[in-house]
């Protein structure tokens, strides 16, 4: 397993990625080694060691996450949420139900909200994935939706929060001034176990205000 990943990093370097990028890649790779030990513990080798048949997808692929190209080793049936959390260390994306029901894993793919738990990483090659980690600007300024959540104390346990924020960001891009009803409808594929819906909708309204400069 670890040998394979070192090779991945080696290939990345050969392809002319900067030294800095390479080091980050290597760090991500070692994170992958330890978390995959936990994830794939039971039958790791047997499940993952086979080589693909002719014409089947290559495991080594490049995905674009938060504006950066990441070259990673992805088994064919790995989901985006798994890749983000356990390969790239982007644990802001949560896995709740793992069944396309709760929305905790919501990420943007080419700007549109998708359930990361129910989307194959091999399906997002050549597309832009945005996660909660990609929202703040270079200088650390929070996205208006993040700021609004702080101001309105939008969540309790906040396990559902990343998903709600990502979906709200897509909503605000589509409609900068949604009514509460429109927001509720758009966010209907996200569940909050603490039932903070009212404050969440208020946060969306506040984000729209912040964007307007109010």
């Amino acid at each position, binding site marked *: 397993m670890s040998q394979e990943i070192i090779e991945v990093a080696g290939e990345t370097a050969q392809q002319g990625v900067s030294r800095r990028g390479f080091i980050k890649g290597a760090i991500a790779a070692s994170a992958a080694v330890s978390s995959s030990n936990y*994830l*794939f513990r*039971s039958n790791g080798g*047997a*499940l*993952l060691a*086979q080589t*693909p*048949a002719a*014409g*089947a*997808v290559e495991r080594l692929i490049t995905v674009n996450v938060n504006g950066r190209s990441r070259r990673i080793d992805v*088994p*064919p*049936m*790995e*989901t985006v949420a*798994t890749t983000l959390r356990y390969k790239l260390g982007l644990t802001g994306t949560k896995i709740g139900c*793992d*069944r*396309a029901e709760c*929305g905790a894993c*919501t990420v943007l793919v080419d700007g*549109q*909200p*998708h*359930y990361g738990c*129910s*989307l*194959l990483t*091999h*399906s997002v090659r050549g597309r832009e994935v945005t996660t909660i980690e990609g929202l703040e600007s270079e200088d650390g300024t929070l996205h208006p939706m993040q700021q609004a959540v702080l101001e309105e104390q939008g969540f309790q346990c906040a396990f559902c929060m990343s998903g709600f924020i990502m*979906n709200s960001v897509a909503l605000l891009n589509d409609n900068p001034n949604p009514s509460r009803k429109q927001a509720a*409808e*758009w966010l*209907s*594929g996200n569940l909050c176990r603490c039932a903070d819906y009212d404050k969440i909708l208020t946060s969306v309204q506040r984000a729209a205000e912040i964007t307007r400069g109010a």
Partner: protein
Amino acid sequence: MAVIRDVIPQLELFQPSSTEDAVALLAEHGSDAWVYAGGLDTLDWFKDRVKRPRVVVDLGAIESLREIRSTPDGLEIGAMAKLIDVVNHSEIQSQFPALAFAAKSAASPQIRNQGTIGGNISQDTRCWYYRDGWTCYRAGGNICYASPPTAMNREHCILGASRCVAVNPSDTAPVLVALGASMVVRRGRSERVVPAEEFFVGPEIDIERMTVLEPGDLLTSIRVPSTWAGTRVYFEKVRDRDTWDFPLVNVATAIRQDGDTIQDLRVVVNGVAPTPVRLTAVENAIRGQARNEDTATRAGDAAIQGVAPLTHNGFKVNLMRNLVKRSIRDEPMTA
């Protein structure tokens, strides 16, 4: 029983970029292969390890399958058009608003961004005994766990059961049947066009399938003829919550009127039987009559002739009667 683990077992994944390549792969791998569209029904089966194909053919890279285009006879909707594409398509909105409305009523926004119309009509049933991996008739066994008096069968059949009492859960299917659509199916070099009414199969024909699609078949598009374009088509869905949820019962009714008189109509319900059901008895009972409260009431009463509810789903009988009645009486709602 299904055991939930966190990794999907090793499979070969193919992502062909043309229909030709996809049908060739399906021909080569036969019943070892699984067609993968949006994956939203599929991934549940794989995660639970209830279905374990060796090869997965992902249609996501075949651009031409996602097109929606008008033809001299109506509309041709690519099987890989996403539900959101169907909701937003201007010609669907103007000619067949009930189809856009039904697509918008299905599942959640995230699912509509990814789930396809082809997958929506080909999706498997939601019977939880079956989905949990119990070896029922549909899974090749010789028992139905949902029909005994002690079973949890609130969401199951009130009509058309044959050993298996699971229902078809699609919201777009009944509208496509009402509109007289047909499904274009490729298999190797040959193509066949199957009327929507025959596309869905019940357990009396094949208890392990929901549609005519067999290993090797690829649904390429859905043709919606202009026959009912711009006419009054009513869709309504009732679910447990007024947000994403599968239908308990839904109805799609197309009516062509001459003044007050119902010249012709097609009435279809889903969520009540293993396939969408066209209610020809209702159609025959009110064709040629004035469209009014009285006619609508008679239609509702005719709809429930011969129903056979289970222990916990008697409520669906009234639901179906009232939905059919409303579909005749009320003005259509839109997306």
